[in-house]
């Protein structure tokens, strides 16, 4: 049996890595959007210590 450069296992691993990468990128974007919404909403207040400064 010859050793193939691209085994089925590599394809599966590649697909998994791309999937995890996309999910992490999506999570970062989601946290960014959440943060933006939270700090621009009307009832957002700085913590007391920072507000005094």
């Amino acid at each position, binding site marked *: 049996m010859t050793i193939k450069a691209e085994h089925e296992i590599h394809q599966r691993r590649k697909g*998994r890595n791309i999937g995890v990468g996309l999910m992490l990128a999506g999570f970062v974007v989601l946290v960014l959007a959440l943060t933006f919404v939270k700090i621009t909403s009307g009832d957002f207040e700085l913590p007391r210590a920072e507000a005094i400064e």
Partner: protein
Amino acid sequence: MTDISYQNQAHEGEASLGDYFALMKPRVMQLVVFTALVGLLAAPISVHPVVAFASILFVAIGAGASGALNMWWDADIDAVMNRTAKRPIPAGKVTPDEAKVLGVALSGMSVMMLGLSANLLAACLLAFTIFFYAVIYSMWLKRSTPQNIVIGGAAGAFPPVIGWVIATGSMSVEAWLMFALIFMWTPPHFWALALFMKSDYDDAGVPMLTVTHGRKSTRKHILAYTVLLVALAVGTAFTAIGGPVYLTAAVILNVLFLKGAYDIWRRDEAQAEADGYKVEKSFFRLSLWYLFLHFGAILAEAVLPAAWGIWA
């Protein structure tokens, strides 16, 4: 390492992303997302779309995490039952340890993120729901009492309450009515399944009502729970989350559901065997539509201002 051992490792040790996703019980997640979304939209306080999207996503991830923990714990009985034998762990695609780690990690992440995106009470409720499903139901009740489905059904009933709490930050009667609807619906739904998945639970040694009390008693139980469910479901029409759309849907669905439960009660095993559990299977299918359409009607009442106008 020989080619053969390499090949075997490749199949056993390298799950695809889809296998991990299957661990999270995508079908259950669909129901969780839908009912939590209805709870959120039926609440009297509106939520920013980004916060709503993120919060529902974290609830879904929490539900998926508890599904993975359930599959880790139940891998031995899943392997014996026809219905669950193809799940990722018994099929050899994912190891039990991977499922456990995924479940614990996603549980922690989803609870923390829900606390940040919504509020602490919603996060605590999600944590309790995961604990209830993974520990109280999967590890304790499922293998020890025929009431497993009755009490364990509470885990599936929490999502609309969580949705409501995401929006309001507190609980109210309406949220618990939605809880009660799913809670009372779960036993007849699963007992109908247990009737026609005949030997599955017996083979696995799970003390379902069909195994411990017999099929005749299970049929009686289905009818009794359905009668209580009908009263609750129709009565909800006259609360703040009900209205004319909900009442119409509830009356039609509950007449059909009650008739199905009555037909199941009237039959015996010989009749059921003769027609391949036709009535039980159609009652099970109807039960899926029953829950979906009740929550759809609650959603319609919440988002269709015209319906409110007519009712008022």
